[in-house]
């Protein structure tokens, strides 16, 4: 039995220790906003925050998460940075199929939370682990800059 704090709620999970957080979220807790893409931390669609840091939930065993705060896309709007990123995603019309965007947003929120005004290089470094097959990259880049600027100016 593992006790996980997911989006501020304690969840008891009767699962084997090696079960990746991704499958606990999707198949057991039914928080399906976090997506499955590759299973090898290659594509980033499963990105969530653990204590505010962007991590790939597909390779993160639940046994490693005791006492940590897990945030998924469903709760990202609870932070100012999360709202700023979501808003910038909408104003830049980023999404196409949308499947990767939960992970993109989680990576972006972690980035602007750590680096107030990210440069192009910062964005490349933080976001190159997140694949988008629809090719929305340039809009993601623009949206991150807008979200960072709005956060700095206290717009959000």
């Amino acid at each position, binding site marked *: 039995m593992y006790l996980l704090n997911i989006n501020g709620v304690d969840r008891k999970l009767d699962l*084997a220790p090696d079960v990746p957080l991704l499958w606990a979220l999707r198949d057991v807790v039914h928080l399906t906003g976090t997506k*499955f893409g590759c299973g090898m931390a290659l594509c980033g669609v499963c990105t969530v925050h653990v204590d505010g840091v962007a991590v790939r939930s597909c390779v993160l065993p639940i046994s490693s998460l005791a006492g940590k705060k897990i945030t998924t*896309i469903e709760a990202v709007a609870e932070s100012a940075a999360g709202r700023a990123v*979501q808003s910038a995603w909408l104003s830049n019309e980023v999404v196409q199929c949308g*499947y990767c965007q939960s992970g993109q947003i989680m990576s972006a929120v972690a980035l602007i939370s750590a680096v107030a005004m990210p440069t192009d290089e910062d964005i490349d470094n933080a976001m190159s682990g997140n694949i988008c097959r629809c090719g929305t*990259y*340039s809009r993601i880049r623009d949206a991150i800059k807008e979200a960072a600027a709005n956060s700095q100016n206290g717009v959000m």
Partner: protein
Amino acid sequence: MLPALASSRRDFLRGSLVIGGGLVIGFSTISDSLSAAEHTAAVYSPNAFITIYPDERIELTVARVEMGQGTYTSLPMLIAEELEIDLDRIVLSHAPPDAQLYGGERHDQFTGGSLSIRTLWQPMRQVGAATRLVLLQAAAQTWGVPDQECHAKNGVVVHGPSSRRLTYGQLVAAASRLPLPDVIPLKPISEFALIGKPVTRLDAGAKVNGTALFGIDAVVPGMLFASVAACPVPGGTLRAIDDRQTLSLPGVCQVVRLPTAVAVIAENTWYARKGLEALRVEWDEGENAHLSSADIHSLMRGALNREGAVGRNDGNALKVIAQDSNRVERFHLNPMLAHAPMEPINCTVHVKADSAQIWVGTQVPARARDAAAKVLGLAPDQVTLTGYYLGGGFGRRLETDYVEQAAAIALQVKAPVKVTWTREEDIRQGIFRGAYAHSVAASVDERGYPIAIAHKIAGPSNLARWAPGALKEGLDGNSAEGSLQFAYDLPNYRSEFVREDGPIVTGFWRGVGATRNMLVLETFIDELAVKAGQDPLNYRLAILTHNDRARQVVKRAGELASWREPLLPGRGRGIALLYAWGTYMAQVVDLTVGEQGDIAVQRVVCVVDCGVVVNPDTVIAQMQGGINFALSAALYGEITIREGRVQQSNFHDYAVVRMNQAPVIEVEIIPSNLPPGGVGEAGTAGFGGAFSNAIFSATGRRFYQFPIRLDQVDG
């Protein structure tokens, strides 16, 4: 639920659309009795696309699936323009499987081929306009005033002289008593209030907060989870398994054997996957056991020596070329490709005694339901299919193999079961874009301009499998797409397609035939320009004297890309023209080749004339996305086979472009009132030639096979 009678009435309107297909559609035979029977209708649902509720909600059923291309915004825009409603009031629903209602003229309910706007541009405006006319008439009769004194705006009918108002919701009952109009005038383009203006995507909100549901997100009470492995060699079968260890693992419920695959059913996807890894499986690998990519490539190259179906034959290109001792001839090869949509292939099925339910993201809802019904031994109407957003399609979800497989698995499971392919399975069990061989030859005049070009293509016919009726005298117009039209001045032009399906089932891939054929042609035109000692852009303009749309996009792309500016060392610039799906486009690619042969694309300029535009930002987004999709293929895309097995498995060895490699993409749309052209495929199809030509510009090396790897010997 809708009243039962509503559906027969909807059938009628849809039937009329199919039969009429023109501007004016006859609705006159709707009987009075039918109208009277709907007197008590609680909603107004005049056709398969619109339902108006008394509480002012308006539900639009979207006839094509949303896989990123923006149909869930653009198709509602077409209806809303004529229905006179605010887009922010509407509720969208996925069209259920029903090829009669939603399958258009072909009675085939599919989303693909850049066809959604092209085929629904007029019908969707007509359903909106017909509905508005009835609502207006209902209001006029309620007030006892002439129709002409009333107008509709923002979901309200207003009587001009008295300023009386009735909302659409208030008119539901009255409208249900009225027949649909005989004549449906549509607004001229000059009066559009919505079409042509940038509209915020209607699916965006749900896609930034995790609430948008894709097929993989289906949650069915009591469901189990499956991980599946099909024979790694195409055409092979399951011989034997040892599942003792698997069945001892936590959470594993069952092992399911299929003729060509094995699945482990478990309490969650992870347990199912671990169970699958623990299985010992023996395959009968069948006749493809020793197949290699080289075998497939030589099969296709060899097929070029056979006679094919001639899709176009202006003048006598073969004779002119044969008589020219200075003829130019090149051979190209386009490799096999996987789609690799971000949402891995999945399907959820619940088989009950006399029925079944399916939850799946598919480009072909009716085909998917029918295919599953066949597997299950049920009639199609015993099977329900719930559609979802697609986490990418690109042609992969035009296939029903995975729905059939999931149905076959579910048939053996006493619970709903969600089958999710691993990424490895998704890559290895793709319905790949096939390999195609090309020969292209030209004879040029004393100035170096072509007087004859012959393009011969050998490769699989996807239509022969997918829509055999679409073949015309052996010609697969999809495989030959992009070679059947020819924009340049040329008295002698020939396109020939030799069908060679090869040993592996292949399928459609974004940009379809034009992606391959225009890459070959536009690379070849570039070679001819260089051979003539001319600038490739000037050369194209010199032989585009009869095609204004093509000229315009080429010229404008050159201007935007500063074509005349000198290049710095290591930089390259290439241009290519595209014409397909009623769309003209030119792209200019700017790139740098590093000392290690590393390629970085800095900038792509894309000028597109796709006729009248519904949602301009969607067109821009489709170009940007299509170009990145093509760049992935140009740099990395290739499925290779050795000893019958696909060698790629995941994003480390089937690489795609990432943030740090994505170029700046500038898109300009040429204003036009011509009929809408396709945009979903065009960005992808228009890129390859410009990229390959830019590589030549930077390095002086020509490549005849993608992906371009600068550490390999010239093709």
